[in-house]
Structures are given as structure tokens and as C-alpha cells.
């Protein structure tokens, strides 16, 4: 039986870093890891990482070279360095592993580094996987679009609702210095773009980019020795789920792992009314509809009602629960293993009130949620942060 209170407030984030996301043709994975980690060190006031970092948790999907790639980039030797992967939820799982290791009393201070380098493969999106005969075509757009026909049929939503999400995330991305795409789009742009897998067009789909993000975690009682502005981990979890493509009772109206992870992490953090208590959220908008379903699956609104809240602007920067304040996977970019850590980077900046032009007003006193899903989706990771 899981002890839901074994993590809350025991671990704090004292440093965050994120390299410039984008098509980083002239950067290797190591180059990006160094950018992200050294920004996190500087943020935490760490000057001698070889002495101050006790353990490292790192992971990626495409640059799947194991723990040495990160250890060698940062010259962190004679240390426990572990490599973990959990599809697109890798980043959140890395943070969870780091948090657990500190909460267990094993280490004082750990470094988490998520990164990926899809642009070394020579294709603009995910590859069409042809290593089997069944379950084809295999592209993420094709997996996630399977919830569209059913959701549209039941709740009467359509591409016009998805367009609003895409337009919002493009607008937010313009305000984030390290985002990949800084180009606002109009509804006309949205509907003119080519279709990838119906109903997803180009602007419904995340920008696959290179990138790395890092954070330094430490025991909360040691946090003040690193940073003037530590942020507490209120809860972090991952949940596995059945493959929705063969699950005999999937309704294709929500993704099960998100609902399961939500129940777990809200109990850890003590959230009972998400809409009122969550000040902002970074959610996994691999596709526009995934963001829409997540509004409902995270309890920000009732199942089936998302289009009304979208129309009211609830999730825009000026709304009562801004979502994907830095542009999300859509425009900030989606280097698979880095994404969950990048979300925590954004939430830490927001909770400190240091998010510049995209700063959410009144965020400091509330919970900041970050949400990652991976696979078909077959996994979800959620982290909840707070100042107090």
C-alpha cells in the first residue's frame, strides 16, 4: 500500500535549467546537457557539482545511449548515475526517481537531466515504424487521433475547438525566450494546414525538437543553503495503463493513465478541488485534442464540457487556470525525454514570479501541475509543485 504522504514537502527544487529548444543542428546531446545542467547549477548556486551532486537520474528516447552520455558530458564520475525511460513521460519519471531517492534518505542532493536529439535522424516528425505487420500505421498522430471520432460524436466538439488550443499555444510560445516556434497563428492558418492524421493537422501536432532540461533537487531542510526561492514537491507519480488499441473497454473519451495518476497525485498533494486550487498547469499537448482531454481528465472541468471553457478563455494566460504558459510541446518543442523536466522548469519560474511576459498573476500561492503522457498512451506522470 502506497503511503500517500511519504513525499509531500520532503524534497525541494533549488535549481532549474533549460537549453534553447529547437533544431539544434550544431549541438550534440552533450552540448545541450551541459547548457541545461550548468544553468541549473548556477540557479542553485552550485559551484562544485562533482562534490555537491550525490546522484544523477537521466533519460531520453532517441539518444538512447545509457547513463554514460550524461555522466561523461558533465564529468560526474564515481557517482550513482541511472538512465530511465518511460516513453514521453520520461521527464516526469526522472523527477520522481530523484524525489524518491531523497525522500528515502539515500541522498541529499541529486541532479535530474532529461534530453533528446530527434533532429539527428533526418525526418521532420516521428518515423513511421515498420518493424511489424500489425498495428500499422504507427505514428503518434495516428494513436492520439483515435479519440477524436468518438469524442466529437459524443460531445459535439470539432476542429474549431482544437484550433483555439493551437492558437493559444502559439501565442504563449512567442513569450517564452527558449521556445522553438515564435510565430502567432490565426484560425485561417490552422484550417489551411495539411492534415497529418485526421483530425490532426500540422498545427494540432507538437513540434519535435532537440533539447535538454535539468533540475537540482535537495532535502527541504537543506534548501535554503542553495536558493533563496526553493519550490517544494507536493507530489509526483507515474501510472501505467493498458494499450488503448487492445484494451477491451476503452471508451476513447479520455486516457486512463491520466485519470489514475491524477487520483494518486492529488491525494499526495492534498488537492480536493483542482479548478480552485491549481494556479497553472503544463499539460502534455502532443496533439491539441490531448490537451483538451487532459483539461477534463485532470478535473479542471467536467467530462464533455471542455469546449465551453476553451471558448471562455479559461486556459489562456489571462484565464483563471492558464495551461501551457510557455507554449507547451506545440511551440516550446518536444524533445521527448526533456519535456517533463522542461515543464517543471516553467512551473518553478512561474511559482517564483520570474516568468517574464508570460507570468501568471497570482500563481505563487497555488499549486502548479505538470502532466506527461507516453506511449499509445500507456503511461502518465504528474508532478505537483508549490511554494509553501
Amino acid at each position, binding site marked *: 500500500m502506497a503511503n500517500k504522504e511519504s513525499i509531500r514537502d520532503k524534497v525541494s527544487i533549488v535549481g532549474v535549467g533549460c537549453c534553447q529548444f529547437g533544431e539544434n543542428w550544431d549541438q550534440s546531446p552533450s552540448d545541450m546537457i551541459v547548457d541545461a545542467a550548468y544553468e541549473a547549477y548556477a540557479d542553485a548556486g552550485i559551484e562544485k557539482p562533482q562534490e555537491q551532486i550525490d546522484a544523477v537520474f537521466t533519460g531520453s528516447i532517441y539518444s538512447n545511449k545509457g547513463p554514460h552520455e550524461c555522466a561523461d558530458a558533465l564529468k560526474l564520475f564515481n557517482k550513482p548515475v541511472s538512465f530511465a525511460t518511460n516513453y514521453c513521460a520520461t521527464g516526469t519519471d526522472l523527477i520522481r526517481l530523484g524525489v524518491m531517492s531523497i525522500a528515502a534518505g539515500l541522498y541529499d542532493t541529486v541532479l535530474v537531466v532529461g534530453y533528446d536529439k530527434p533532429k539527428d535522424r533526418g525526418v521532420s*516528425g516521428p518515423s*513511421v515504424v*515498420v*518493424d*511489424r*505487420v*500489425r*498495428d*500499422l*500505421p504507427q*505514428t503518434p*498522430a*495516428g494513436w492520439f*487521433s*483515435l*479519440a*477524436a*471520432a*468518438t469524442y466529437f*460524436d459524443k460531445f459535439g466538439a470539432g476542429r474549431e475547438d482544437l484550433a483555439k488550443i493551437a492558437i493559444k499555444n502559439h501565442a504563449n510560445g512567442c513569450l517564452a525566450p527558449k521556445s522553438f516556434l515564435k510565430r502567432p497563428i490565426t484560425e485561417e492558418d490552422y484550417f489551411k494546414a*495539411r*492534415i*497529418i*492524421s*485526421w*483530425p490532426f493537422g500540422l498545427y494540432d501536432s507538437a513540434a519535435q525538437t532537440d533539447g535538454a532540461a535539468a533540475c537540482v533537487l535537495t532535502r527541504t531542510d537543506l534548501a535554503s543553503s542553495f536558493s533563496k526561492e526553493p519550490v517544494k514537491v507536493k507530489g509526483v507519480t507515474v501510472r501505467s495503463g*493498458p494499450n*488503448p*488499441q*487492445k*484494451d*477491451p473497454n*476503452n471508451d*476513447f473519451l479520455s486516457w486512463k493513465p491520466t485519470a489514475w495518476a491524477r487520483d494518486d497525485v492529488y491525494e499526495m498533494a492534498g488537492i480536493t478541488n483542482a479548478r480552485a486550487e491549481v494556479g497553472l498547469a503544463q499539460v502534455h499537448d502532443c496533439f491539441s485534442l490531448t490537451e483538451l482531454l487532459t483539461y477534463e481528465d485532470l478535473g479542471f472541468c467536467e467530462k464533455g464540457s471542455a469546449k465551453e471553457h476553451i471558448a471562455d478563455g479559461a486556459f489562456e494566460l489571462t484565464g483563471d487556470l492558464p495551461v501551457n504558459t510557455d507554449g507547451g510541446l506545440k511551440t516550446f518543442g518536444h524533445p521527448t525525454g526533456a519535456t517533463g523536466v522542461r515543464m517543471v522548469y516553467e512551473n518553478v519560474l512561474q511559482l517564483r514570479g520570474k516568468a517574464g511576459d508570460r507570468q501568471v498573476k497570482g500563481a505563487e500561492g497555488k499549486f502548479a501541475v505538470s502532466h506527461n503522457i507516453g506511449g499509445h498512451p500507456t503511461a502518465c506522470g504528474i508532478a505537483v509543485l508549490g511554494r509553501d
Partner: protein
Amino acid sequence: MIGITSYGAYIPRTRLPFSVIGGRPAKDGGPERSVAWNDEDAITQGATAAIHCLEGIDRSQIDMLIFASTTLPFQEKQAAALVARVLDLGRDVQTADHTGSTRAGTSALRSAFDAVKAGSARCALVIASDARMAAPKSGMEINFGDGAAAFLISDGDAIATLDGFHAISDEVTDVWRPTGHEFTHSWEDRFVIQESFTPNMNRAIAGFLENSGTSIGDYARVALYAPDARSHGGVAKAAGVAADALQSPLFGRLGNAGTAFVPLQLIAALEAAAPGEKILAANFGNGADATAFSTTDQIEKLGPRRGVEWNLARRRVIGSYDDYIKAKGLAAAEWDAGTNPGLSATILFRERDDDLSLLGQKCNACDAVQFPAQRICETCFAKDDFSRLRLSDRTGKVVTYTFDFFFPTPNPPTVVTITEVDGARIHLQVVEIAAEEMKIGQEVEFVFRKIHESGGRPNYYWKGIPKPE
């Protein structure tokens, strides 16, 4: 009584109008030919004809399968063994491929009949299937067509007995395709007709009539091979076939379907025949042969079959010659699918029951049906307690769908669904449906098709098609 106890046909739904070959728009009612589309070949066509032949028939009695084709996708690796797996026939089946000549279809029928008569097989499935390629814009491209025919031969309730067979052999380089060549070659037409086709057909028919002591007038239906409509008329006239006894060769609708050509005409004849009719089928290819059949009272008791007329009524007319060129793999591509070693043979081997036979499993503890095979029940978590269950002949229902524009295909998008069958959910491509016609709840039946050509070889799996009326 030994004879044909069932039959089934398959003709690809895609039709290429002659006008489109000539660079003009498709015209209603004009001549056309059938085309195996990019996910079809001799094996998929033959498997489908066999499934149509076996409708309502217990497959466990079949102990022989002969696959006849000049366009076997593998020169080494047996089509008959693959199709036996697709049909879930079990392992105790004699399998053989007959090839090398368009006569392979009729010689396979004769071999099956002889095997049952000799007692070396109880029930034989004979499949003739071809998807021959002619050079683009050539005369042969117009005259060829693609299709498959299947017959079940056993000592039982025969709908037609096989009364006699006569074959002659001839060595002549008239029509040929050397190993490694894609297109069928032919020497000058007049040479082929005058020195090979006409004399061989005449001699086989005359020899048969003489041996059997019958005359051409005894045959109510006569099916004849021919390279084209004109030579078909010529040989019919020479043999003295009455106009009302001459089986239509289907030029302009189907085309010369190679090894399946005369077998498909035989099916068309059986579909129309009353009990007690005599049918003569004469075939050609490095010699010629003549086979005679008599229909029995049983022909009226065989349930409805998917025969030639059923198939010809299903049409998708393509209006673009470029689409045809792309579908046949004749358009230049940036990457050659054959430049990688292909799918893991080990994995294909392990997953034969799932991928080729489409066997799901039923949990013995909770009755839940699932696909593919798994060791722990997805519903009640019982371990290793399942019965296999063939899903390929069940009807599925679409739970949800999407249209994928990324997956390589001559006509994007690829329609992809989650289809439920007996409670199991399958990630399934659906073909032969327009995107705007797709809906939640659409009923589909399963068809065996090519999925891709990774490794430069056909890789097969199942797709859905809208359930025919």
C-alpha cells in the same frame, strides 16, 4: 461421387478503364480490366477466393492444398503452405505449388481429382491465382486482368464431376517471363496465334473429343483460354462451338487472368448451369489441355457463393494512370524497400497464429476474447488458460477511426480503426471505403492483404473491408 463440391472466386475491386490507359478520362460502360491493387498479389487473391469457396464449410476435412500461379511472390518459399496457415487448416495438409504455365490452374485441378480418386487425399483445395504484370501501355496490359478461383474437390456431394482430361505439351518460346523479369514477354502476336495457340488448342480439344467419344455439341458450356478476344473467337469457331454454348471470356470486364482465367470461366459456367449439363474447359500454355465436367443435382443445393458475377458487380474505377503506376510499384521511389533486411523472421515465426491465421484467444475463466495472444487475461488476470479462436471469419465493428496521411500508400489517407470482434479490439486498417463513408459502428469483414514490402518481400496481415451486403 468425386468432383467439385464448392467453388469461390475473387476479382480485385479495382478496375482500370482502357480509356485511362490511353490517357483519356474514365467513361461509364467502357471496357476495363481488373487490377490487383498495391496491397494485393497472387497470394492475397488466392486466399480470398479460398475463403469464399469455404463459406459455411468445415475446414478441418481439407488434407491437400494446391496453389497454382505464374506470379508466385516467392520463387522459393511455398505459397500453398502460407495460404494453408492463413486458412487455419492445421499442419496435416499436403501442400504444393503448380507454376510455370497458365495451364497450372487446370493441371492442379486434375492432380487434385486424381489424388482424391487414388485415395491419397480426402479433400483437396485447389487455388488458381494470378496478377501478371505487362509493360505499361502495352497491348498485354489491356488484355491482362487479375483474379483467383478456388475449388474444393472431394468424394462427397459433388456439384460437378470431372469426366475426363486430355493434355498435350509443346515447346515454344511464345509467351515467357525469365527469372527476375517483372513483365510478361510475348513474341510477335501472329506467330503466337498461328504456331502455338491455335494448333495447340485445336489438338487438345480434338484429342479429348476423340478419346472421350463425345462431340463438341454435347457440351452446353465451353470455356476457352485465349490471349485476346479475337483469337478467342477464332479458336471457338475452329472447334465448332455454338455461340450459345461459348462461355464469355470476360475481355473488357476482367481480362486474361493467367492461371485463374479458365478456372474463373468455369466458375461462371457453374453459377449458370442447371443439373445434368456438360461443361468443357480448354486451357493453354506450352501446350494445351481440355477438361470435361458434368453438373449434378447437388448444384442446386450449394448455398450462394461469391462467384464471378458477385465479384464483377463490385467495382472501383480508377481515373488516374499515375495511381495505377504507383500502386504497381512502377514509380521511382526515393528509397528502395529492399535495402533493409526486412522484418525479423523470428518474430514472424512466433506470431504466425496471430498475424496469418488471425487467431484470437478466449479466456477459459471469464470468456473474454482478446487479440493478440497474451499470457495473462486482460480482464480477469487468469494465467495461461485460453482457447484459440479464429477471428478471420467473424464480423467486426468499428469502435473509432482516424485517417492517416503519413503511411505510404498510392492513395492517402490510410483508414485506421480500432475494430471490435467478439469483444477483442484490433488496430486494423480498413480499405475499400471512402473516408466520408467511415462511421462508428461500421461493420467490417476481414481480408488477407499485403501490409508493406519491408525487406523487399511482401509482408502480410489482415485488413477490414466494409461488410458486403
